[in-house]
């Protein structure tokens, strides 16, 4: 079994990202910035109706507009569009303005059908039937022990009904790509994707050309969060338009389409009955849960969550609506499961008259085993206990007052504290590869068909090679985002770094070995006499040969090795906890965050700077979920009311409170090996905010987001 070096120089350090200056100076070329010679701009025409049959499409007026070069129909006559924003056609033109004119000039006759754009509408008696199987689908029933008997025996029980709305990814670079045909069966695609290999195979399949002839390039990209794994209808449309016109085609969604058709996080609601024994340990839970993932996707989420519930039953129903399809979004299902569970736990603690922190400690499983790279499994419950202690101190939990005390407090400003726990996997796959090339001029290159979606993966791979070769990370060219390179990991599930770090380490080790073997003779030494460190090759511990000079001994042939996974360098299964201190103005319903504390373990941290950015980013995305975000559907017209960035609310600079990040980083964690951090830190934030609001007000605000509307509604009912 392999292990990471005990003492490291570059691994774990705070290394500024290699592409940071290019991004911060406007020089980095994103897929949407690519303008190959002769490029045409394309736009998409989308459905203006929530549910309609297309009875007639006439593209002749569009085609007649000077500058319009081609029209491609995504939906044909006779097809049914099933949500506002569904793609109908794409137009390529000499300019984007003309392409949009072309879209407007396509004459379509619709037979408008009855719609159901909310769960309530879809479940009503007179709802239109949206799929052949109806509007609902039952999830697999879960049952553990005897929850009815356990609830009857519980020292305290509480029943709650909580809900979270549909939100969208809001990738700042919208979904899209530039497609250029390089021959009759060969294309280059600059795609804003989390998965260059996946886009390659989908485009090859769609156009029936060999995958080897499709080059997908994603040097940098502007955010995905789980929504950018495929070529999508617009990718294929761009390929068709490029084929028809013989020119490269640029096609990116507009902001409205990005909200409506490029994915969303499903809603979630739960009716939960939960009980505990008199020591304050959860004994039973019965939950009826529901959610919508749009017209065809599910809205599953884990429940019970984190805590050990010996007796439980759960029924889940997915509801279909006339809405865009859900896509994976940063820790799919977990933020929902976490919020539902943590609300119930908090309300149960209130019924018990106990500190909710204590009920959580009492309800952790005695043994929650998670793996470690060094083969010594770890009890995650112990990690949680230590993390909760750190978080409790950092937020000042001892200042927390009970709900009853806060409700009695004078004045309109009420302060509250809340917390929540989360978990995630984040392990690596063992089938990915990295090439490490050492050139005779001393330059070093890594190659793999993975991509950096903003997480810092490019920099981390360079750090690993730099550590092994005794160089600075800036001396390594970390060449990723090219589907022609050895197979790399898609960026999902917090698996990228744990999948790519072991092959990068392996390839760098083997490249170093080969380098030593090939230059040892020229340095009058045996391979075993050589070390690489501090930018030199050290011969027999004394003579220093500068790196470049040593590499010249390679002659004309570079070292090039491609290696895969090594056992022992990664693990999975993380925990974390977050604490929130906030103030609610009960006259306006406005929630102001004072401070958030996030404690997170993720095994061996490879880059402390980008690691912290990930955790800050996760917390801020969770803060948006907790306070601001909701895609609002109009039941009357069936249209989305806020597919923009004005009324679809996201935090700005003034909304950001003090955020304290506490890396749970110790010898035991480092020995676990690499675990991804992208998703875990976004899970618990909204739940902790909701719990702090309940604590501040003395009453539960059951519906997210914690907006003035929902806060004042809850106060009116209290």
């Amino acid at each position, binding site marked *: 079994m392999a292990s990471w070096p005990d003492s490291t120089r570059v691994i774990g350090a705070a290394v*500024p*990202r290699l*592409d*940071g*200056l290019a*991004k*911060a*100076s*406007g*020089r*980095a*070329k*994103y897929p*949407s*910035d690519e*303008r190959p010679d002769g490029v045409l*701009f394309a736009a998409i025409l989308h459905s203006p109706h929530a549910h309609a049959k297309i009875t007639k499409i006439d593209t002749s007026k569009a085609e007649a507009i000077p500058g319009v070069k081609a029209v491609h129909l995504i939906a044909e006559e006779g097809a049914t569009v099933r949500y506002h924003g569904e793609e109908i056609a794409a137009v390529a033109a000499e*300019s*984007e*303005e003309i392409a949009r004119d072309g879209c407007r000039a396509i004459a379509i006759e619709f037979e408008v059908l009855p719609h159901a754009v909310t769960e309530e509408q879809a479940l009503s008696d007179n709802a239109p039937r949206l799929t052949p199987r109806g509007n609902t689908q039952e999830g697999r029933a879960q049952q553990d022990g005897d929850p009815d008997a356990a609830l009857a025996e519980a020292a305290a029980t509480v029943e709650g009904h909580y809900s979270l709305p549909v939100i969208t990814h*809001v*990738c*700042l*670079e919208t979904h899209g790509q530039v497609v250029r045909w390089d021959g009759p069966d060969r294309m280059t695609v600059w795609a804003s994707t989390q998965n260059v290999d996946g886009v390659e195979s989908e485009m090859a399949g769609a156009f029936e050309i060999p995958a080897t002839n499709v080059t997908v390039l994603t040097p*940098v*990209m*502007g*955010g995905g*969060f789980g929504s950018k794994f495929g070529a999508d209808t617009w990718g294929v449309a761009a390929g068709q338009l490029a084929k028809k016109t013989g020119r490269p085609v640029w096609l990116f969604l*507009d*902001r409205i389409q990005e909200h409506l058709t490029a994915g969303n996080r499903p809603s979630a609601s739960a009716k939960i009955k939960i009980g505990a024994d008199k020591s304050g340990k959860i004994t039973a839970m019965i939950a009826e849960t529901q959610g919508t993932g749009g017209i065809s996707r599910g809205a599953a989420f884990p429940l019970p969550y984190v805590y050990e519930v010996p007796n439980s039953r759960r029924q889940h129903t997915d509801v279909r609506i006339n809405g865009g399809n859900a896509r994976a979004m940063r820790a799919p299902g977990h933020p929902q499961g976490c919020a539902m569970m943590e609300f119930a736990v908090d309300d149960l603690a209130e019924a018990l008259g106990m500190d909710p922190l204590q009920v959580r400690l009492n309800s952790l499983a005695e043994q929650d085993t998670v793996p470690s790279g060094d083969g010594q499994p770890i009890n995650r419950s112990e990690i949680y206990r230590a993390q909760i202690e750190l978080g409790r101190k950092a937020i000042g939990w001892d200042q927390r007052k009970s709900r009853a005390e806060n409700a009695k407090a004078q004045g309109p400003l009420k302060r509250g504290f809340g917390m929540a726990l989360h978990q995630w996997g984040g392990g690596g796959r063992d089938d990915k590869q990295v090439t490490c090339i050492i050139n005779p001029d001393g330059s070093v290159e890594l190659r793999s068909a993975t991509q950096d*979606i*903003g*997480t*810092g993966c490019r920099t981390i791979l360079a750090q690993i090679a730099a550590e092994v070769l005794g160089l600075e990370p800036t001396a390594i060219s970390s060449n990723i985002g090219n589907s022609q390179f050895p197979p790399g990991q898609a960026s999902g599930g917090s698996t990228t770094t744990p999948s790519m770090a072991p092959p990068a380490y392996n390839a760098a080790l083997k490249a170093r070995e080969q380098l030593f073997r090939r230059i040892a003779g020229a340095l009058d030494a045996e391979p075993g006499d050589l070390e690489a460190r501090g930018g030199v090759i050290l011969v027999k511990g004394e003579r220093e040969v500068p790196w470049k000079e040593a590499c010249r001994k390679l002659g004309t042939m570079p070292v090039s090795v491609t290696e895969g996974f090594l056992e022992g360098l990664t693990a999975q299964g993380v925990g974390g906890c977050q604490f929130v201190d906030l103030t609610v103005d009960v006259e306006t319903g406005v929630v102001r965050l004072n401070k958030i504390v996030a404690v997170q373990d993720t095994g061996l941290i490879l880059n402390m*700077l*980008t690691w*912290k*950015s*990930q955790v*800050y*980013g*996760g*917390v*801020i*995305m969770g*803060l948006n979920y907790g306070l601001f975000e909701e895609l609002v559907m109009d039941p009357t017209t069936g249209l989305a009311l806020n597919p*923009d*960035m*004005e009324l679809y609310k*996201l*935090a*700005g*600079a*003034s909304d*950001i409170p003090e*955020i304290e990040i506490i890396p749970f980083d110790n010898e035991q964690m480092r020995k676990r090996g690499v675990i991804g951090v992208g998703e875990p830190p976004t899970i618990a934030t909204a739940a902790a905010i909701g719990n702090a609001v309940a604590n501040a007000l003395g009453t539960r605000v059951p519906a997210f987001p914690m907006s003035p509307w929902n806060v004042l509604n809850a106060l009116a009912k209290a």
Partner: protein
Amino acid sequence: MPPQDPKAPAAPGRPGHSRRDFLRGSGLAAAGVALAGSAESALHEAGADVVQTEGVAIYSGSCPIELKVNGEAMSVTVEPRSTLLDTLRNRLDVTGPKRVCDRASCGACTVILDGEAVYSCTTLAISCTGHEVRTLESFETGEGSVPHAFHQNDGLMCGYCTPGFVTACQAWLERNPGQEPTLDDIKQGLDGNICRCGTYIGVFQAALDAAKAMKNGRS
């Protein structure tokens, strides 16, 4: 220090017929009322073709204009409705400023127009002739510069909002030379920009560091 609000309407005499003005004008035109006010004068200044159809003025066609971008005179043919952002990105290959919301909400398209930060997604290209456009590609990048501070503090992740934040920060520092802003000043100054990855903490530190460097004369 006055807060900087890129959403504020153009002050009298300030360049930049906004697309909002123009769209308002267009709407009136469609209703059969003559396009009036600043948008109309901008169209005439730009020499746009005007087509009269049944008494309705439809402004279309192309107008060759001269723009000064990052100190360079550039000739470009635009439509009257072309935004400065789309002109920069689609016609001049100046792709530093990004199109994100396209409606003056998020700030990713921020450029500096005659020293002021503006949203280029809602500024018409034809109204920028004779004015100076600066994008972040023209900024210094060495130690003490704004891009350098963003890089060192990891004030970016995917980086798509970053051009807007960097430009807003640069414009703010130029308007407030020698000041050492507080965290609250920085938050207020950058409130016209939105980041989805959640890099605000690094952005704040970058802005504070850049201000300090500027005060100490390092940029």
